[in-house]
């Protein structure tokens, strides 16, 4: 770990791929992902830690990447919305959002998906209350949340039962 105000070298793995770059200590993780690495799935909504559009999974935990410094992520494993799809196959959460019309403008969706991903990793069969609690840090101004909750529930079912067809 380098010290002081000069540029610091940051190495991370994002969606399984290694990346490294020199950044100012004040660079936020969201700006590092978007501007340095070109990973633009995580969005900047409010930039004040309220909206959750920038949510990513950092070492297994959902965090708002506008509230973490890039240098703090040095050595970390990061999952963004881009990492959900595998070999052209959407993640069950993404499929469920699509099938349940869980988005209109889509701006909050990358964050909603990552919060839902964290929830289902911990609780494969959440109640509606638990789903609502899990996405309280993700604002959506379009849907009224109804279809988002429905989609997460549907994804949970899909993921816990063996895939049919």
């Amino acid at each position, binding site marked *: *770990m380098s010290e002081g105000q000069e540029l610091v070298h940051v190495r991370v793995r994002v969606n399984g791929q290694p990346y490294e770059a020199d950044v100012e*200590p*004040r660079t936020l993780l969201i700006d590092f992902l978007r501007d340095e690495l070109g990973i633009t799935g995580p969005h900047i909504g409010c930039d004040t830690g309220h909206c959750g559009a920038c949510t990513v999974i950092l070492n297994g935990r959902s965090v708002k990447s506008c509230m*973490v410094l890039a240098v703090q992520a040095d050595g970390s494993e990061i999952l963004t919305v881009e990492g959900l799809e595998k070999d052209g196959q959407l993640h069950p959460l993404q499929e469920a959002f699509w099938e349940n019309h869980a988005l209109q403008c889509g701006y909050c969706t990358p964050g909603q998906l990552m919060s839902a991903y964290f929830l289902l990793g911990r609780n494969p069969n959440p109640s509606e209350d638990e789903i609502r609690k899990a996405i309280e*840090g993700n604002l959506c101004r379009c849907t009224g949340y109804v279809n988002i909750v429905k989609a997460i529930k549907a994804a949970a079912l899909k993921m816990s039962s063996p895939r049919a067809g």
Partner: protein
Amino acid sequence: MRPAPFEYYAPETVEDALRLLEEKEGAKLLAGGQSLLALMKLRLLAPSALIDLNRINGLRYIREEGNGWLSIGAMTLYDELEQSPVVRTRYPALREALYRLGDQQVRNRGTIGGSLAHADPSANLPPAMVALKAQIVVARRNGERRTISADDFFVDSFTTALDPEREMLVEVRLPPWPRMSGGTYMKLSKREIDFSIVEVAAQISVDDAGNVREARIALGSVAPKPYRATGAESVLLGSKVDEGLAARAAEKGVEGLEPPSDVQATGWYRKEVSKVLVKRAILKAWRRATGVEQ
């Protein structure tokens, strides 16, 4: 939005962190960063250096001690505490305060030590710490430690008993409460993620007959630091609790309170809500202490 430039240090020991804190003028300690980074992005704060505590090993633990105390490392995440079975069973007031703290992303990053050292008058944990009679362990260089009770730790709005240039919070200790004890945390806010308008933490222990042996009631968001409703506590002592007694205690408890008015609520409204929440919290804590309710 970006913070103003700063020097960044990531020490790996408490001793190195304290050395840097003494050496670097205008430096601040960075814990979970869920308040500090927000303030820096808004340029309300522009520390010359950040000393990041996240690379220090051995500040993240929840440990039951042989003497019944629970020791919590300063860098323990809110979420780790909230999920902890010992916190859930032994300290429901703390568990409820954590459950209603921020959102999942904040709980995944924020730390107990960071919250207490920040001492936001509307934060969830300070009143819970006062109600539970927490002890706060503070480190200085050369392994020096001192312990401060939660009652004395919070001094004013965003101000604690810590010497900001040479001390850091390293541990929180919760005392064992007798078997027949119960507690709760309640708050009113416009939306779940908003700052609270009023919050109350209550902890009560009773004797075999159900009479109150000890009561600790602390409010937040109504004063520059957690407000002990000692008036309410003394009304409860030696008695069984019912609606009437809880109401009288709540009335007495908020007597000297002069809450601030702000964009969330007027002082008058805060005081009225305080009465209601103190009453409800007393009833719930007593029901839990007597085993009527989990």
